[in-house]
């Protein structure tokens, strides 16, 4: 038997008995960042493939979500900082070893580009509105001409953004639940899947809905495989990882993780989407909303549960 206690009385706010440094705003940001990355990826991909006509929701309507999601996400991040006035220090240096540093730089490029992208579709989104000024019209023509170039820049950046939301957590070896190499690809897949779900939700074309249902189904299967892979990796891991796994298997996050994320957020929508592809008439919004909800709860579970896990010494 071994028992360890603090005898000098230690109860530091947000540190003891377990970390509560990162909260809801971080989970919200990770979700919105992944969602934005997912939509951006599909919009850029279909533009590069010159198939904009086949996926109007992906390149136009769902893209409206991206600048909004990124702005809300960034406000959430800023809200979570405790030394807010010094936030500009992020842009005084590039630190390759710190995922947060290059994430901040990627966001600095992606966020304005996403605004410009939506602006380039201004006339098609709001045909009744007139861009009053000549320079705005010229600017829009310039953007429309360069849409493909924007897509070429955005395609790799969206993948980096999506994978970075996972690597941000997996870079901390002090938190065994986070510290696995699969978390980056897992968050990317989840982000792409939520992106596809929101495109399904906003699409009016039957062809596009069908196409993205298929894409989403494939992504869900990959995501389930990656989750299984993550759990197996930890199950075969060291004592700290086994202890981290206990939180998901029989611990306080079991229902949240398996009930809301795996079953309601992945398996159930996958079944609904399969049924739909087989020809059953179902409201397509249900699986799409479930996927979005599952993706959000997944981020909350990982952020909260990860901070409970720690090194035993």
């Amino acid at each position, binding site marked *: 038997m071994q*028992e360890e206690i603090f005898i000098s009385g230690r109860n*530091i706010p947000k540190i003891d008995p377990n970390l509560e440094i990162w909260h809801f705003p971080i989970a919200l940001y990770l979700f919105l960042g992944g969602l934005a990355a997912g939509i951006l990826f599909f919009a850029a991909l279909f533009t590069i493939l010159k198939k904009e006509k086949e996926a109007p929701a992906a390149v136009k309507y769902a893209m409206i979500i991206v600048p909004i999601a990124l702005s809300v996400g960034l406000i959430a991040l800023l809200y979570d900082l405790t*030394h807010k006035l010094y936030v500009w*220090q992020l842009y005084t240096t590039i630190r390759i070893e710190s995922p*947060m540093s290059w994430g901040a730089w990627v966001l600095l490029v992606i966020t304005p580009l996403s605004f410009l992208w939506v602006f380039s579709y201004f006339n098609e989104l709001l045909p009744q509105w007139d861009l009053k000024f000549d320079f705005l019209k010229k600017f829009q023509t310039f953007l429309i001409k360069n849409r493909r170039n924007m897509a070429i820049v955005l395609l790799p950046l969206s993948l980096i953004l999506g994978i970075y939301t996972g690597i941000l957590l997996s870079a901390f070896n002090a938190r065994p639940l986070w510290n696995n190499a699969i978390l980056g690809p897992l968050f990317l897949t989840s982000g792409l899947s939520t992106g596809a779900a929101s495109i399904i939700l906003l699409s009016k074309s039957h062809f596009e809905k069908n196409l993205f249902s298929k894409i989403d189904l494939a992504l869900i299967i990959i995501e389930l495989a990656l989750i299984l892979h993550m759990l197996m990796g930890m199950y075969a891991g060291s004592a700290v990882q086994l202890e981290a796994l206990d939180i998901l298997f029989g611990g306080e996050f079991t229902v949240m993780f398996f009930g809301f994320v795996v079953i309601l957020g992945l398996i159930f929508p996958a079944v609904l989407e399969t049924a739909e592809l087989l020809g059953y008439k179902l409201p397509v919004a249900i699986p799409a909303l479930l996927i979005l909800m599952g993706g959000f709860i997944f981020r909350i579970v990982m952020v909260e549960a990860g901070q409970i896990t720690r090194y035993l010494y």
Partner: protein
Amino acid sequence: MVIDTLKCVGCSDCVVACQTENSVPIGYCRDWVTESVSGTYPTIELELKSERCNHCDNAPCVRCCPTGASHIVPGGVVMVTADECIGCGACIESCPYDARYQHPDGYVDKCTFCYHRLEKGQLPACVSVCPTKCMYFGDLDDATSEVSQLLKARKHKVLAPEAGTKPNVYYLI
């Protein structure tokens, strides 16, 4: 830093000295004392340890800091520049020893080995007040220093070596 667990009586003087010397806000502490009991009666073993930031050679907090506020100064002490810290909390998440906290003013704070005292040639506050003189401070790179000699002569350990951080606070056992 070298701490003799066989001499420590767990009085927590080091904690109070640190809080006074560094004006640590109430409710916070940069160092703390743990008591670990192992075995079952009658073969019971008790170990007392004064713990703090381990000023690791491979410091994860320095690695993950997005602004470079967390850095290692020449000599090996891990420091935080308050004016560069944005309070993102990444370093707190990265520390396997939970040795950092968010100061009520927003920036991240931690043990500095009393760097302001070291510059004047004085010992860290915790070391200087220890009534059993169980703490030793010195240059581990200098083979003739008291700390190096102690590590040569005595059995010792570091905390969570499996975390790969290469900590610089040694415990004599």
